[in-house]
């Protein structure tokens, strides 16, 4: 007998003596939305608030973004080819490449990619392969700049799950990469970005 059948038979045998099976509880009794989200509030304002609580930074103008990147001594980065025209405003002090070269990963100090959306309730950015041009471009550089449009904002986790797409890889990013493995002390920038930026596209 295959291991598959062995396991499934054991499962059936284990459950056979139960007089009845527990039913799915359903969600009629309970609202699963946190107090971090208020339907009255503007989605972008709500997102910004929750995003900053998880140490995300949001920018709405190219000048601010450029000044910040320069203050971090960033010079070279990766940029989604579809966004190069938009971010031409960062040139010439900042330059970027549109193909992520694995051999140059240590030279890229920032990555600019598109986010599919963002969840206001939790301050999470959503990336999917359909819209994120490079997984490494959004992950390897110290600074990641995720670009969203107002129309991409989603209110809550349940809504985000109900609209989840068919993409093979979807990721919600809630703040910069971090660890607290050493004595419970929070350190940002573990393996992924140490600085997570959200840029609101005009």
């Amino acid at each position, binding site marked *: 007998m*295959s*291991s*598959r059948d062995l*396991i*499934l038979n*054991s*499962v*059936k*045998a*284990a*459950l056979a003596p139960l007089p009845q*099976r*527990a*039913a*799915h*509880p359903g*969600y009629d*009794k*309970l609202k*699963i939305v946190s*107090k*971090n989200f208020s339907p009255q509030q503007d989605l972008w304002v709500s997102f910004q608030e929750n995003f900053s609580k*998880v140490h995300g930074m949001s920018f709405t103008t190219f000048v601010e973004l450029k000044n910040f990147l320069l203050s971090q001594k960033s010079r070279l980065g990766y940029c989604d080819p579809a966004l190069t025209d938009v971010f031409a405003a960062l040139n010439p002090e900042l330059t970027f490449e549109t193909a992520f070269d694995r051999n140059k*990963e*240590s030279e890229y100090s920032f990555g600019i990619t598109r986010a599919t959306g963002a969840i206001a309730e939790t*301050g*999470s950015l959503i990336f999917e*392969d*359909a819209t994120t041009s*490079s*997984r*490494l471009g959004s*992950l*390897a550089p110290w600074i990641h700049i995720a670009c969203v449009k107002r129309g991409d904002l989603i209110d809550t*986790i*349940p809504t985000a*799950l109900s609209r*989840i797409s*068919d*993409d*093979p*890889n*979807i*990721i*919600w*990013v*809630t703040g*910069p*990469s*971090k*660890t607290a*493995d*050493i*004595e*419970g*002390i929070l*350190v940002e920038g*573990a*393996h*992924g970005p140490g600085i997570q930026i959200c840029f609101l596209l005009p």
Partner: protein
Amino acid sequence: MAQKIDVFAKKLTDEVRHSVHNASSLKTMSRVDALWRDFEDPDAMRILAGELKQHVIENLDTYLPQAEAALQKNGVKVYWATDAQEACQTVLDIMVKNNCKRMVKSKTMVSEEIELVHFLEKHGMESLETDLGEFIVQIDHDHPSHIVTPIIHKNRRQVAESFQREGIGEYNETPEVIVAQARKFLRDKYFKADVGLTGANFLSAESGRIVLNTNEGNSRFCLAAPRIHIALVGIEKIVPTDKDLSILLNLLARSATGQKLTVYTEFIKGAKLATRPEGPEEMHLVFIDNGRTKVLASECREILRCIRCGACLNVCPVYRQASGHAYRSVYPGPVGAVLSPLLAQDDFPEMADLPKASSLCGACHEVCPVNIPIPDLLLRLRDRAKREKIKTDGSPPMEPFAMLASHPLVWKTAMQAGKALDFLPVSSVPGGPVKAWTTVRDLPQWKGGSFRSWIKKRQKNRRSEEKP
């Protein structure tokens, strides 16, 4: 003789005890803050989540084939492993078949359970942990002592020493520097690896999506650079639909670390496609039983609801004093005291002392995001050990008491004979446990046996009062 866990706890250095106690207390507080700040009634959520997971485990015969079909539809190759040996062999076979030599691992408890790293190394494969805590465990040839924070028993000086010893970086106690050293060291490894191995926090039977919850970004790296993805999934990890993830995701990170969500919540539905040319070329998923169907058949099947948040460890007064290694198994703390003896299967007697390592205070039940009645399960396992006549250290012999308590006449006689204690020179016993007790305590006057005459009198009076 004392219980094994007490023997272990006594040998802990103050340094370790403080590390474990401080970090776990801190997480308990963050959990409370996060849940009560964000929700009106977190307890109602825990109860609902418990009902949901109970529904899943009682319908695994439906959900497992459903999940398998969904995974296959997504192009995922599905394997089944009855035990640890078969699971390890399956991973090795996938690696050999695909000409793989190097694996990078994201944190998965089930891989610890089947001792995958050891097995692969024995067969000439390189396998590297990339979660910072697990990485340190690996270079120190140690074991994780906590489900979520594996090196809760170590301090920064010890980590700095290990890094220096292994040539990962110069000795530096600053956590930021240590993390940066690990980041730099591991970066190169991702790019050289052929396989990225992950676990799964959840698997949706409806869509065949696996969900991974991490903070460091290492699991994303494991799926960004290597060409093969292997996921190890315990058969109990299923949720019926994507919609059901809402409540569990809301509870998991808050219960574990006090975060709203972990930094990275990944939904993975197969390898890359012609239209989505990023990520691994193939995805393989291994369903692992390794004792779980036996747990499902037992009277403790509720433990299969567990979503591995570690909240019961953090809150447990025994765990805080004893640390994780005292539980001698992959799953420590209250959840481990139930799960480890059960997963040990034929070696249950070796682990039968663990369910006794609890004061049954109930804190673990109160914090559990899936409302597992851990104290009840501990009692059921104590009962099982008793019925199977398993002797464990640290139990006083209970047979004389059992005899007394089940023979009314003998009991009555013993109660009356107990009066003799008032006249015995108990406090002048020269040594042993009696002396240890009487140096700081007086033996109160014997009052045994009076309850029976009191209740008899009371009932008699009642009857006479009731008479008109």
